[in-house]
């Protein structure tokens, strides 16, 4: 049994729900067991923190459940394996910090705080990392606008990039006049199996 399987088995005992997509293993754990799950994975051999990042499922089609996810990307150098430990949370919920396990999580958690507004309890220095001090909001949230400036053409006509692009998404006609739609034989248009990874 490989290290990854061992850890996944252990995380199942912590109410973890494993998922696999294209040989990438992720385990969604409840918030209360997050610290325990990460600590046990670290002790088992996932000794390098690769990344901590947030995801916002606000406009994900068909998504149910909590809005945000925070994923911890851990890597084991000896076993050459990678695991994603994920936790789902809603607006206003906080997460425990893991900076005492890895000092390198400092910037990563600050970035998640900056971009998604997820607060990490007991973080030593929780400030904005990247965006300017005077920027209100959290840019990577789906309800934060991209903030494009409309393009002004010589004839005095403005072109709104978002309206132009809407046709690409397939949810409205946009300026391209194309209404998306299913194509024969395209797998993505069929019902996804097994939900998200």
């Amino acid at each position: 049994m490989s290290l990854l399987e061992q850890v996944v088995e252990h995380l199942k005992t912590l109410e973890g729900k494993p998922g696999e997509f294209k040989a990438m293993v992720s385990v969604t754990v409840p918030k209360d067991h997050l610290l325990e799950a990460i600590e046990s994975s670290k002790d088992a051999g996932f000794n390098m923190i690769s990344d901590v990042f947030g995801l916002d499922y606000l406009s994900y089609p068909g998504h149910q459940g909590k809005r945000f996810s925070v994923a911890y990307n851990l890597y084991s150098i000896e076993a050459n394996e990678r695991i994603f430990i994920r936790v789902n949370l809603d607006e206003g919920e906080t997460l425990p910090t893991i900076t005492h396990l890895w000092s390198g999580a400092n910037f990563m958690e600050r970035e998640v705080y900056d971009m998604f507004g997820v607060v990490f309890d007991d973080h030593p220095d929780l400030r904005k990392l990247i965006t300017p001090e005077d920027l209100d909001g959290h840019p990577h949230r789906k309800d934060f606008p991209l903030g494009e400036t409309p393009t002004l053409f010589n004839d005095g006509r403005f072109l709104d990039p978002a309206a132009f692009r809407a046709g690409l998404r397939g949810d409205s006609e946009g300026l391209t006049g194309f209404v998306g739609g299913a194509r024969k034989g395209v797998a993505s248009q069929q019902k996804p199996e097994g939900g998200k990874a």
Partner: protein
Amino acid sequence: MALTDLFTKDVQELENEGILFSSLEKLVAWGRSNSLWPATFGLACCAIEMMQSTNSRNDLARFGSEVFRASPRQADVMIVAGRLSKKMAPIMKRVYDQMPDPKWVISMGACASSGGMFNNYAIVQNVDSVVPVDIYVPGCPPRPEALVYAVMQLQKKVRGEAFDERGIELPMVEGWAR
């Protein structure tokens, strides 16, 4: 040649003997145009091409602009090389304000000139909204040759040999007026 020659001889004759006539303003501008010292204001990709313009192949030193000054107080021209984020904009304004008059600005690359491909919440869409720009250099990034050409165009502007889009001659040391 005696000093009296200056008053007795014809201008054409004197020029044949190697004496040139100019106004002091033009002479100063000529000297100034050949030693435009840029402030190092590399921001992104274009900064690498700005570095390359001083290397052995392109050699910006031929036009007197190779002395990149770390201190804005010693610089004449600021080359804004790269995309300017909204967090960096106040700092750029401050660097510009610290430069002594007369001063010029080259906006290098598509991002600095128009926001380029980054039409979003983080990038200033035109450097001209923060500091007055004299020369725009297109490209993503512009080749070092393009930057060398921009410096040569700026030299023309400094010497008063440049014209605006309506064909009206631009004033020689526009920088004083700022």
